[in-house]
């Protein structure tokens, strides 16, 4: 066996090259087969609520809008990546190579989206990001289009707004990973630019659910407010401990991004969330006919589950894809699809949104909301709006 080895290696490799060449020639798929969308979501693991919401929204979109667009049948291939980046990458590669998908979509977390970016570039397949929110993602491939939000977008909005509300001194407290650092940097920048002072910036490890020691530091620093970003799911523990530590009684205000008061979990979190002010692009109580129809249809199709921001991001992702198929007459290749996605504008359940032609990132209204009890349920009630916010981070440093 060992002696065979030197002969095996060159043969294997030349065969590999041959196979590769053959496949590359046979790749361009027949034009009139179904338009396939590879939807990669975390359906298991810690981020599964994101996957559940987006999946439900995608199904809803297709049942509302049908599966025939510009004469082509649209087919969604759903795959689970469990929130593990190298699985996302392998699944994406398989979808492109084996299933010949025309568009990749989903991507629940920043690392998952980043791991696929090179594939989108290499295979020239548009990649619609429906959740991941670190600013830098869209810069990693010219084929990435984002319909979710970016953390600089919401946190800098919050920074500017807070500075105008008699909040002078702030402590920031963020989950210690990419999106958290984005939120911290851009909140601080906007807040300082508007004349505020950041006393301390705390970073909580994602794996540590006990916020007590960090909150104690907040108490000892005595700020006017604490700005917080935690990924959806951790916010509840934080707010509980915030109240339990009596920080609300000492007059320290709690402000944050919309992830903290996730619509999906708000009712379970209970009355402790009352009065928490957050900045975010979507609330289930957004007052528009589009949203009313969306929420009631979503609830009807999903046993009463309330849609959260992730659901809307996924819904809009499908909107962008359908729109692009229509505009290209069902015949466009990857580059053509991305070209028409840039500059797309439509009325979403969250309000008017557009895709920035320069950065392929979402431009949207960011709302300042306060948790309140309406008709027996807790909602993020919108009370101020920043119109058409772009991601401030593209081409800039915090």
């Amino acid at each position, binding site marked *: 066996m060992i002696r065979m080895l030197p002969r095996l290696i060159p043969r294997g490799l030349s065969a590999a090259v041959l196979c590769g060449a053959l496949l590359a020639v046979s790749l361009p798929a027949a034009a009139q087969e179904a338009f396939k969308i590879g939807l990669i979501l975390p359906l298991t693991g810690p981020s599964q609520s994101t996957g559940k919401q987006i999946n439900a929204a995608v199904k809803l979109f297709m049942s509302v809008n049908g599966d025939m667009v510009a004469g082509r049948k649209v087919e969604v291939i759903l795959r689970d990546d469990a929130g593990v980046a190298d699985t996302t990458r392998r699944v994406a590669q398989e979808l492109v190579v084996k299933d010949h998908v025309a568009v990749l979509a989903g991507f629940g977390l920043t690392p998952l989206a980043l791991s696929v970016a090179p594939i989108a570039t290499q295979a020239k397949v548009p990649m619609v990001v429906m959740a991941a929110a670190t600013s830098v993602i869209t810069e990693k491939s010219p084929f990435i289009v984002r319909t979710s939000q970016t953390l600089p977008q919401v946190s800098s909005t919050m920074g500017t707004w807070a500075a105008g509300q008699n909040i002078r001194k702030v402590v920031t407290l963020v989950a210690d990973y990419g999106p958290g650092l984005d939120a911290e940097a851009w909140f601080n920048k906007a807040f300082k630019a508007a004349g505020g002072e950041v006393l301390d910036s705390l970073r909580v490890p994602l794996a540590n659910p006990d916020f007590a020691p960090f909150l104690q530091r907040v108490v000892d620093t005595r700020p006017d407010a604490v700005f917080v970003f935690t990924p959806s*799911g951790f916010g509840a523990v934080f707010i509980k401990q915030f109240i339990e530590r009596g920080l609300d009684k000492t007059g320290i205000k709690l402000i944050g991004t919309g992830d903290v008061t996730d619509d999906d979990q708000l009712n379970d979190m209970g009355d402790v969330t009352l009065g928490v002010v957050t900045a975010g692009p979507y609330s289930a109580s957004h007052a528009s006919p589009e949203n009313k129809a969306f929420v009631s249809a979503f609830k009807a199709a999903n046993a009463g589950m309330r849609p959260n921001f992730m659901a809307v991001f996924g819904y809009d992702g499908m909107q962008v894809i359908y729109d692009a198929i229509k505009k290209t007459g069902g015949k466009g290749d990857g580059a053509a699809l991305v070209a028409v996605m840039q500059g797309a504008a439509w009325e979403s359940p969250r309000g008017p949104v557009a895709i920035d032609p320069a950065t392929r990132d979402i431009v949207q209204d960011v709302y300042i909301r306060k948790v309140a009890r309406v008709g027996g349920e807790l909602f993020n009630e919108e009370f101020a709006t920043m119109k058409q916010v772009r991601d401030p981070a593209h081409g800039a440093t915090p």
Partner: protein
Amino acid sequence: MLTNLFDGVAYGMLLFVMACGLSVTLGLMNLINLAHGAFAMAGGYVTVILVNRLGVPFFAALPLAFVASALIGLALERTLYVHVYRKSHLEQVLFSIGLVFMAMSGVTYTLGSQQVFVHLPAFLSQRFDVFGVSVGAYRLFIIVVCGVLAAALQFAVARTRFGSRLRAAVDDPVVARGLGINVNLVFAVTFAVGSGLAGLGGALGAELLGLDPSFPVKFMVYFLIVVAVGGSAGMTGPLVAALLLGVADVSGKYYLPQFGAFIIYVLMIVVLLWRPQGLFGRAAR
């Protein structure tokens, strides 16, 4: 400073109640049970369902959580665990990891993956000053409950007839059997009580630590640290280890937030290198 110490003690007490059953089962049957956290999770979810959905008062739900977890523990011990005592440690590890996976997806399937909370009675979410130290009512409540439990356990192990049988069985099961002690029964009871205590701990901790289906894996390491560092000789070792862990974890995060996550692990490796049988352990059988 004192507030931190207080928080750390509350956290440590909680860990002790959740982990003490594990230390006994390890000492008694030489069983490595990574699924112990699943019983804590069971207790937590029982409380959540009772309090939030059925409107049972919080204080009535706590003993029920204990009983429910103890019954689940007893049932699993009699049907499944009893078959793995004689197996190798590796097989025990695999078996209990399997149980953890099943428990996690079972809960996800029936109750969903989102984090849940217990609706506490209002007076437990108060906060007051004791000699200038700011103290949370719920944490104080935890310290009192767990402290009483620890004392009761210590008494039960050291002073009662059952306790002396238990100690005899831990010291040498073969001789204990020869003396007419029904070691299997002792173990079944201990396992059930240990699971019940874990469930009670889970019920108490759901509010503080957050409860979701990944709970057993998230806290598995913490339980194992308590047992490994504390040794499995009695109640004192795990108690001291749990308190140390709680205080070290909380103050580590307060004073050195950059290194918070490192401290406990480094501490544990050092302790285990220095004394492989734990701080209060004795030589391996």
